[in-house]
């Protein structure tokens, strides 16, 4: 998988209540939810971003609640992937289980600036910052996670096991 998009940069510890405020949680309709993506951290985010754009966060991205609505929202909004220094545990799990791409890279998350154009090549494990022409190597996903992806997500994996 390969994505190229413009970067929106966020700080450390972006929490799930900022990604999608809990007050909108009275529905699980992805389209309804996506209207409020990142609203409490940047109320104009949905006006500014274009499908295919990439989010770059700091450490502990997606901390807080276990609500899968957070990665659902980002995916539905059209965010191609999130690059961060580190991810909160449940957000990481949820993203994998539902097939939303996330990439952990301390160096890339530090260097990349808002507005840069970045190419993420998951197959080859490389992030290319096209604006600065700098490349970053990404550690491959653990073997089990690759099996989950190859199976088409957790639900398919579990069904196959039964």
């Amino acid at each position, binding site marked *: 998988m390969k994505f190229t998009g413009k970067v929106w940069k966020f700080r450390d510890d972006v929490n799930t209540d900022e990604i999608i405020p809990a007050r909108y949680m*009275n529905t699980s309709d992805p389209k309804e939810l996506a209207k409020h993506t990142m609203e409490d951290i940047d109320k104009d985010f949905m006006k500014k971003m274009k499908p295919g754009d990439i989010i770059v966060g700091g450490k502990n991205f997606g901390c807080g609640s*276990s609500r899968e609505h957070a990665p659902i929202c980002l995916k539905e909004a059209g965010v191609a992937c999130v690059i961060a220094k580190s991810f909160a545990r449940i957000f990481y799990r*949820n993203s994998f289980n539902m097939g939303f791409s996330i990439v952990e890279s301390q160096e890339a998350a530090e260097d990349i600036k808002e507005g840069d154009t970045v190419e993420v090549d998951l197959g080859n494990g490389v992030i290319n910052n096209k604006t600065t022409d700098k490349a970053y190597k990404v550690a491959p996903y653990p073997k089990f996670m690759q099996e989950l992806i190859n199976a088409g997500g957790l639900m398919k994996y*579990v069904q196959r096991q039964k």
Partner: protein
Amino acid sequence: MGMTITEKILAAHAGKKEVKPGELIWAKLDIVLGNDITAPIAISEFKNAGAKKVFDKDRVCLIPDHFTPNKDIKSAEQAKVLREFAREQKLKNYFEVGKMGVEHALLPEQGIVTAGDAIIGADSHTCTYGALGAFSTGVGSTDLAAAMISGKTWLKVPEAMKFVFKGKLSKWVTGKDLILHVIGDIGVDGALYRSMEFCGDTIENLSMEGRLSMCNMAIEAGGKNGIIAPDKITKEFLKGRSERKPVFFASDKDAKYVDVREYNAAKIEPTVSFPHLPSNARPLSKVGNVKIDQVVVGSCTNGRIEDMRLAAKIIKGKKVHSTVRMLVIPATQAVFMQMFKEGLTEIFVNAGAAVSTPTCGPCLGGHMGILAAGERAVATTNRNFVGRMGDPKSEVYLASPAIAAASAVTGKISGPEELH
């Protein structure tokens, strides 16, 4: 090589003699849990996968606690999804409004979760049950769907951190203050992916309510689970309550920890976490003059009977300050009933507080006490993120029921000593 209590429970549920940190396992689950926000997505995935029956109708728990009693039409639709699924699957542990309580207060109280269990819940505060000596962690809706079908989940065995507390707690210091202090010490990702084991003579003397508050907030330090070795207090709590036979595990003397931290508990003050992260913890003496508009006593962190007793003791015979709204939300119907019996409800109402039926309500900015822009609340809840209790320009200060009740009287963040 020795194992921690967490490793032992995981090994037992993976059918292995031993497990090591970093190892990926499939664990058999004793209980899987969802609520009115997370379960609708899981139920839809369950159906999309073509599944017909849950793996065990006695082990899947659905609790409509977040936006119930239904706050609006959309929430009513979500709660209906749970209700219909619970009926169709004949789930034993579905709790309708009127019997429902905040999930993480309800499950231990009803004896549905017990020592030695492995539990996942589609709610981040599922880590609460570690207080009983169980492995318990929060997951998302897809994990819940898969576990409802298979009764299993995949887990990475976490590295362990140990937090040793020594000494007698000062007056008005509770389990809540200890955990806020720890989060202030290590930060909101200080235990990321790790197990947090709490021990030492302070913990051995801490009530089950205090232990539940501590394990409840392990997630606020990024932890995978919080856990306390079961002992006499655990045994007493589980007696006549636990539906299944508890299994007591304990960490080996030579178990491996990536970090061991010692705290002189006698020196820990009542602690308040300032906006907008639980790690912005300050001792009460360094809080300064912070005027407030609302006080919330309740939630899965501090909505148990001991919390209600503590708040009532402080506010008894006094009045809620004229510029403050005080909300008291017992976490379960049993807590509510006990409050009536002990005259606590009367104390709160006489003081000018609103007492409500159990709900997560304001904790996540759902309903029942939302803040306007610029307003501040002292809450016994677990998160103070931007907009957590209402407008993104409102503020939440996390504290114990003692601080919350005293603050309701003075109209600013205060300790009970300031009332004399």
